[in-house]
């Protein structure tokens, strides 16, 4: 069924009888060409592009619970491509371009809102680093804009310019950055993939891989064995848990990242703002809630919940940079499992097991990467070669010393 304004009107006038399920609820087939583990943003996007770009129709997505229940349903909805390193920037810029055409591609309004993202600068060293980054973005074909203090004051008059412990000195803006209605991304990809024949199978937990002399033949699941020519894993925070079933140790730790939303408020913020001298970034949803977050709690966790110190740390940052939010009330706090890699950058690669492919280690970058991750993983699965924009995301880069370390924090995941 095609969605449109006319359709909405027609259904309204005929009692909404005509709306059909956004995706089918099929029984798993015994064998697929490609099975994707993980019904999150990346898995569903991979399925969509496999079907729509790489002409792979015999595909299933297996989801342990309900689709979109992982990080795609619990992030802070930001999209941007303001990366520094050549291993990352072309990939994230490709992602941003895919976001820009996503709604038409999916016939689903994910409320992609390119209202800009602003990284505030508080020291000379930070300015040097951000100018280097802005240049890298432009040299990679993305947009970036350096704003001096007067410009920041004009655009963000509500920031703390009076008694800031770390005064604002400028900012690096990416005007094409913004936010997306996160749940809609999962639903839109699911609906589009389903429309092209992909089986989306919920409540189907993968309990093991069937590996015969070095070749992956399929997966054991809570709904029986499902054979597959190729198996792609895209389970983000559960990567460690899942790949252990294939006896793999990964350059990844799972950490908890908390996010927060305030009560609904009339429009306050023009776009995404990130505080450069503390751990705080914020945007405002279409519903009016301030959606904000900061750093991961910092310890390994699969619990999907965090603790007070980080809540306080984030709010301290918020009050330091925009004290006008003080009387807005924090409504809800939740946690997601971040697959923090050893250099802060992801992995999209084959494993040493033939027919078994891996996509993970997204750290904070997972949501904004969703379309490109899906496209590149689909490319790898369909062509058995890395997508040109994802050639650096190899498993062996840590062995060979080709890390992609945006923050320069080294092999300590909780610092990325």
């Amino acid at each position, binding site marked *: 069924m095609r969605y449109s304004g006319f359709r909405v009107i027609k259904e309204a006038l005929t009692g909404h009888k005509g709306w059909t399920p956004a995706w089918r609820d099929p029984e798993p087939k015994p064998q697929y060409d490609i099975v994707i583990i993980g019904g999150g943003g990346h898995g569903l996007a991979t399925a969509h592009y496999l079907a729509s770009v790489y002409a792979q129709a015999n595909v299933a997505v297996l989801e342990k619970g309900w689709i979109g229940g992982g990080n795609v349903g619990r992030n802070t909805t930001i999209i941007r491509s303001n990366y520094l390193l050549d291993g990352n920037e072309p990939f994230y810029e490709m992602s941003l371009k895919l976001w820009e055409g996503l709604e038409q591609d999916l016939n689903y309004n*994910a409320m992609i809102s390119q209202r800009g993202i602003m990284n505030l600068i508080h020291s000379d060293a930070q300015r040097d680093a951000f100018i280097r980054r802005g240049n890298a973005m432009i040299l990679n074909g993305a947009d970036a804009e350096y704003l001096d203090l007067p410009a920041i004051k004009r655009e963000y008059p509500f920031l703390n310019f009076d008694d800031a412990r770390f005064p604002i000195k400028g900012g690096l803006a990416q005007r094409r950055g913004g936010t997306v209605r996160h749940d809609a991304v999962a639903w839109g990809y699911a609906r589009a993939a389903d429309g092209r024949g992909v089986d989306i199978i919920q409540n189907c937990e993968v309990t093991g891989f069937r590996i015969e002399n070095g070749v992956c033949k399929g997966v054991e699941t809570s709904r029986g064995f499902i054979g597959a020519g190729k198996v792609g894993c895209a389970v983000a925070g559960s990567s460690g848990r899942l790949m252990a079933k294939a006896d793999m140790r990964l350059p990844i730790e799972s950490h908890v990242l908390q996010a927060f939303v305030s009560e609904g408020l009339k429009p306050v913020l023009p776009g995404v703002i990130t505080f450069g001298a503390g751990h705080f970034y914020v945007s405002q949803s279409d519903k009016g809630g301030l959606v904000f977050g900061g750093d991961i709690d910092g310890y390994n966790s699969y619990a999907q919940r965090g603790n007070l110190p980080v809540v306080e740390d984030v709010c301290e940052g918020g009050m330091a940079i925009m004290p006008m939010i003080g009387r807005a009330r924090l409504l809800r706090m939740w946690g997601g499992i971040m697959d923090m890699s050893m250099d802060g950058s992801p992995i999209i690669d084959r494993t040493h097991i033939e027919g078994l492919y891996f996509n993970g280690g997204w750290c904070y970058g997972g949501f904004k990467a969703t379309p490109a991750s899906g496209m590149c993983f689909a490319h790898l699965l369909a062509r058995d070669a890395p997508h040109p924009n994802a050639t650096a995301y190899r498993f062996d880069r840590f062995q060979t010393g080709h890390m992609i370390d945006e923050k320069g924090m080294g092999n300590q995941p909780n610092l990325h």
Partner: protein
Amino acid sequence: MTQKNRLSGGQIDRTKPMKFMFDGRFHQGYQGDTLASALLANNVRLMGRSFKYHRPRGPLTAGSEEPNALVELRGGARQEPNTRATTAELFDGLVAKSQNRWPSLAFDAMAINDRLSNFLTAGFYYKTFMWPKAFWEKLYEPVIRKAAGLGSLSMKADPDEYDKGFRHCDLLIIGAGPAGLMAALTAGRAGAEVILADEDFSMGGRLNAETFSINNEVASDWAAAAVAELSSMTNVRLMTRTTVIGAFDHGIYGAVERVSDHLHTPDAGKPRQILWRIYTNKTMLCAGAIERPIAFDNNDRPGVMLASAMRSYANRWAVTPAQRVAIFTNNDDGHRTAMDLHAKGVKIAAVVDTRPDVALSDDYQVLRGAQVLDTKGRLGLTFAEVKLADGTERTLECGALGVSGGWNPNLHLTCHQRGRPTWDEALSAFVPGDNLPDGMHVAGAANGALSTHGALETGMKVARQALEIEGRAGKLPQAEDAPVKITPFWFVEGTTRGWLDQQNDVTVKDVKLSHQEGFRSVEHLKRYTTLGMATDQGKTSNMGGLAIMAELAGKTIEQTGTTIFRPPYTPVPIATFAGRIKGMEFHPTRLTPSHYWAKEQGAVFVEVGNWLRAQWFPRPGETHWRQSVDREVAATRASVGVCDCTTLGKIDVQGTDAADFLNKIYCNAFAKLPVGKTRYGLMLREDGIAMDDGTAGRLAEDHFVVTTTTANAAKVYQHMEFARQCLFPDMDVQLISTTEAWAQYAVAGPNSRKLLRKIVDAEFDISNEAFPFMACGNITVCGGLRARLFRISFSGELAFEIAVPARYGDALMRRLMKDGEEFNVTPYGTEALGVMRIEKGHAAGNELNGTTTALNLGMGRMVSKKKDSIGSVLSERPGLNADDALKLVGIKPLNKSDKVTAGGHLMNAQGPVDAAHDQGYVTSAAFSPSLDSMIGLAFLKSGEVRMGERLRLVSPVTDLTVEVEVVSAHFVDPEGERLRA
């Protein structure tokens, strides 16, 4: 100022009348009122508008679970959007206005949405607004954003103060109703350290809202007596106006105390609120239960409220929402409301009970087996349409309708660690499951004991269990023990626009539609319809939605499951989580020993980490910072300058294995460093990347003083402790930071020795022979003050660093300035320091950026192959040793007047300018007075073999392209003759 709906009795103080304003109109209430009770007393039912359809709304509840009666409280910078009128305590001069309406509450233009509601069903926005593509940001979204949201912020900085506090106890009791009070009495009498917290301003919970008695006294009097006894116990701390917002790991609870919200403005120096972190061994959740509504068409009109709320208003606040009221119930509790209001002289139009077999009443008519089908009244309830058991319909005239669909145990906090509730058939409600947060127990209505007796009994029993109290239990007070009589009934058949989530406008129809479209998991239902995502987080709405979803899916409610309750229990101001950590107090400020002196000199300061350092010292007539910096550099290179470098980290390393330890920590060798000598050291992370650099001076065989960069001091100390305790546990090494113990000043320039000669006591020979480059030692100055002297140089000049106890730093700086007059001694700041180190080609933070290796820094040969050191193995990886690896070089513009920008990228002189042809980047840049040109340090591919090559420096983001030449990074005195002079 009439209070038309004020009844007799209640717990308000009629001797303290209070004047307040709502939407520009003055009203009067009394001490003890909430804004909602006072407005109802004045016959104001309309208090807000709903989120999506802008429907008129009045209070649904009398507590913090309120979804409807949200107002903007106070004004100016203290404006508080979305404040619940049902919990806002009345104070004299209170000002509130309604929100999310235009132009006025009574006439809201956006109410047009209600007319269009058939088009604006669940998730409609996912299906449209896609064409034309560009219209979303430009047209659709701004309109949607303007319509959305609830209240508005003042956009001014919050003027109030907030505090954070920490309390420890044996037992934390959450909720001071019958169960909580009984538990506190039991634990308190047993001598335990108890904290009893309640969100209300008066303890007692439902006891303050009911008419029955305990031990033959009025329930609220019994509660008052219990509170009096508890407050006399030193081991019991009572926290009223305190909401426990979250159950976190290992018995840590967050609680918010509203210290001043019931005042016009906080008293001077006093906080508005305090965020408490409560550490407890055991916790008792005694949070009671929350009544739930029944869905029927137009069940959202002002005047339709929960029956228990109606009872609270009548009994506690002596208020009725209208002179003539009706009740709609599926259980016995609804009849209590009718009895209490009747007793207070309120006309009961009828009690509509869905059950066919309930008792009749002599006082008012009971319609058995009947249902409310619909209501009327544009801005407030006027009539209720009722369907009788025999199928006939009747219209009831009433200004208020109390609805009782049964009670939900208030188990919010039991879910904060992902515990799942279980279904109780008898109560037809969820009760706490068995996977509670560690140490948590639940008692009273929160655990399904819905009678007063049940609450008192479990309160005592569970407290004794939790604290393992031995001996005979005290006597239990006498109280009513009515059994729960309920027949589950969730929504009236045929209902379309029956509201489930009254704030977010989620109706029965929306739930049906989301099911029809395949959003069948409760999480999908919630996200697709926004059910339970309003500011009340579904406390009154979730159950109805679940029940309908269960019916549609042909499952039980238990199989359908629930969404997760997340902290906080009620919304908390962001400022409360920050406390005093904001503004200038966001981080502690570290001042250098010469700070006060520098201030006198009119120095300009800059934040470096938490330090404030002098950036430059303007002199009269200098109009641009460059003039000051250039002068400071020139004067230092010409004669002598002084710079406070106390901020550099200093770590005292002692022990018989100190030298071997440094051999592990630094990639270059230290074992053979003679006593009295200092050496530059480069520290690698285990991954082979440069971590930090500095010097280590050997004061004795077993004693080194290590310096770190200002930024990395804490990190390096932690790293060294890791090596000491975890990697080399048998090394005899002791570490301690001495950063702040010493005021350390760099004295640099050709005349530095002459100046120091006047300070350092005569018995110490600091001549080049006796105290050569890289010497160090203990000395005394100014007639016997202990001090340390290091002959090290960051500027490239003949230079020393002299250290004295921090308290003498101020005096030493003044002395250096005085004694240095003859040499035109010049204080210099971090800018001049930076210029000189760039001129000298010394790497600093911009070069040690966490991705560079010793090889990149041109120190590849320093990494000793003769010994093991942290990072040496992984530094050998091929990717870190590529043939065209980045190397640190200097760059100079071909045209002296051209600008050089740090952060600029290097491109070949010809060829395309893009990422694929990137040759490297500029890390640091400065104007060099010595070369009368801007210069820069850069990382350049194969830099070491490209000296003299011409490149383009491009910085598109700052719109700059200049031609530069690659030169040695050592712009000044490359041979190092000066510093050895």
